[in-house]
């Protein structure tokens, strides 16, 4: 393990990779500050750039962008109450009231320090948990992998927003369906190609990710224009007040940051749960744990209420890398994109990554920590300057982002047919968004589809076509039971809630 850590460290400290972390954090912060664009769009925009880099540098750049985008989202949450992504919604609960009181500088500094704490503690936990899990998963067989993928896919659907569980499942199935297009890798026959040579290789991951999350997001913001907050954000940043945090305040929030980091990390490890749930849970926990007088401050500018979600969402972001790097199962849309990118580089994440490419495994983990340092040391003081970039009017920014999305795909394939397919997919994505279908499960299904089919094929061949492979091995059985529970629970809950609502209505009517 020490050899691996040293190999990772030597890769991570290479000047190119250090620059990647800095550029990633900087670009991510900028994109994250833009309303409507979150980490997933930021990473999608980076994929074409990473194609020209070696896998370690590519992953390091994407990890930097991920952290930067979350940090940028927190900044806009605090300053103008406009979270860039769902995981920073809770930050606005107390961050914005603090900014309104003239303590924006302090709020930004506290957010950065707590993110740093979350990042540091989670990096240590990642250092311990990832290799241990990778070692355990080396004993996994194809049936275990198939069942594990079922857990991943069903969990992502289960953690979808209220009333979206069924839709998330449908999107997962659609993603799996899309993954079957092209020449079947196991048998070699064409499937759903309609005789078109462009479809022989199946849909391009890059095209799908860029169309749904980069181009789709921007086109959606053109369809449903939100108020242009860049000027407001820019002016809010011009006078943020002092960034000083007193000793008493640090004493007060230190236990909060530590507790939230642990909670965030473990929530992040769960497939599908992610940074948003971690932020909400830690906020709720700290509110309950706070003494009476401090509890009343929550929602009115409490420093505990700001530190808890910031530490938790950062720790959860690191935690979500555990299933990605050790099992090859992404727990969120963002890590799904990273998995797709890794597969495109020809690297299969999972237990073999730890054995075959330890330098990638460890350099990503170490760079994630560097990302935290960069965010605190460089980005925090640079915030007022980054905000100057936000002064670029929306009328110029949106066509530029569309241009980067289209060019990103075009420069990889040099095929204009891809541009047309991309436009079509983006338009379909807009309709899906309007009908409140979540898009992350689609991408997850698409990315895991090939692997899932391969493992199902092997399992069925080994078990001679019997479904008993799902319960023959204890590990497989455990995963099967978990996925069955995760699948059934939302349906039962919905039915139960509906029944209760009906009963309440009946009682009302009787009144």
């Amino acid at each position, binding site marked *: 393990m020490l050899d691996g850590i040293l190999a990772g460290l030597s890769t991570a400290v290479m000047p190119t990779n250090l620059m990647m972390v800095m550029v990633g954090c900087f670009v991510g912060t900028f994109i994250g500050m833009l309303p409507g664009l979150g980490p997933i769009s930021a990473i999608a925009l980076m994929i074409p750039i990473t194609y*020209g880099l070696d896998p370690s540098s590519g992953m390091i750049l994407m990890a930097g962008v991920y952290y930067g985008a979350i940090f940028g989202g927190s900044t806009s949450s605090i300053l103008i109450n406009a979270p860039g992504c769902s995981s920073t919604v809770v930050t606005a609960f107390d961050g914005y009231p603090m900014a309104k009181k003239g303590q924006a500088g302090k709020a930004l500094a506290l957010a950065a320090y707590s993110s740093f704490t979350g990042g540091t503690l989670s990096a240590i936990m990642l250092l311990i948990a990832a290799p241990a899990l990778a070692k355990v998963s080396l004993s996994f067989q194809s049936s275990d992998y198939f069942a594990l993928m079922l857990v991943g896919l069903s969990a992502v659907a289960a953690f979808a927003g209220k009333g979206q569980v*069924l*839709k998330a*499942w*449908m999107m997962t*199935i*659609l993603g*799996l*369906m899309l993954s*079957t297009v092209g020449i*079947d890798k*196991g*048998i070699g*026959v*064409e*499937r*759903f190609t309609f005789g078109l040579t462009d479809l022989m290789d199946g849909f391009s991951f890059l095209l799908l990710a860029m169309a749904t999350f980069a181009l789709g997001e921007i*086109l959606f913001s*053109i*369809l*449903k*224009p939100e108020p242009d907050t860049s000027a407001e954000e820019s002016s809010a940043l011009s006078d943020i007040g002092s960034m000083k945090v007193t000793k008493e305040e640090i004493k007060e929030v230190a236990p909060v940051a530590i507790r939230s980091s642990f909670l965030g990390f473990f929530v992040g490890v769960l497939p599908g749960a992610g940074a948003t749930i971690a932020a909400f849970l830690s906020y709720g926990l700290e509110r309950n744990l706070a003494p009476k007088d401090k509890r009343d401050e929550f929602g009115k500018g409490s420093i505990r209420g700001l530190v808890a979600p910031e530490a938790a969402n950062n720790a959860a972001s690191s935690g979500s890398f555990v299933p990605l790097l050790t099992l090859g199962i992404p727990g969120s849309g963002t890590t799904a994109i990273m998995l797709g990118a890794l597969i495109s580089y020809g690297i299969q994440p999972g237990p073999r990554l730890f054995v075959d490419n330890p330098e990638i495994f460890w350099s990503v983990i170490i760079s994630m920590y560097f990302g935290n340092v960069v965010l605190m040391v460089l980005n925090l003081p640079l915030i007022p300057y980054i905000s100057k970039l936000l002064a670029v*009017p*929306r*009328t*110029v920014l*949106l*066509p*530029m982002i*569309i*241009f980067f999305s*289209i*060019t990103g795909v*075009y*420069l990889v394939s*040099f095929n*204009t047919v891809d*541009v*047309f397919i991309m*436009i079509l997919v983006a*338009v379909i994505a*807009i309709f899906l968004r*309007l*009908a409140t*279908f979540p898009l992350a499960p689609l991408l997850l299904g698409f990315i895991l589809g090939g692997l*899932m*089919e391969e493992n*199902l*094929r092997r399992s*069925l*061949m080994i*078990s*001679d*076509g019997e479904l008993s492979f799902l319960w023959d091995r204890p590990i497989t059985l455990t995963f099967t039971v978990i996925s069955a529970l995760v699948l059934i629970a939302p349906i039962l809950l*919905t039915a139960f809630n509906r029944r209760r609502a009906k009963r309440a209505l009946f009682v*009302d*009517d009787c009144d």
Partner: protein
Amino acid sequence: MQSTPTSLLSRDRVSGLIFLLVCLIYGYQATQIQLFPGDEYEAFTARTLPYLLTAAGIVMSLLLIVMSPAAPCNESACENESRLDWRLLSAFVLLMAAYGLGLTWLGFVLATSLFLLGGFWLLGERRKAVLLGASFPFVTLFWLLLTKVLDIYLEPGYLFLSL
């Protein structure tokens, strides 16, 4: 208690119906996948996963159709719809399609510059300095970066090749 009028075809139900149709087409196409002799005795063929997905997709879409409540006919939903700028989106989709064609015919520099110019214009930018300054010079610099620094070959476009 006065009940709100409802429509049977809510957005969710329509979505469910469309998804059902997609699943049926997918399922039909799955039956057309070529099988090799002896495949009928195999535990897993190229059709197995598509069949499973078709079945799961049909169940899900039927669940959505059955479980989603009828849409209330209220004005707020219509108001939300009217806030959507379909005209601008359509214009952008056309502009992007034209850009796709332009890449082949006009080449990267001209097509991209015109695309950016059109995009700025559509979003309401009217300042000549921005319209021209952020398109042609920016794209030329970007083109220089791609071709001279990163050594990426970009075709000049049919129009210039025929000259």
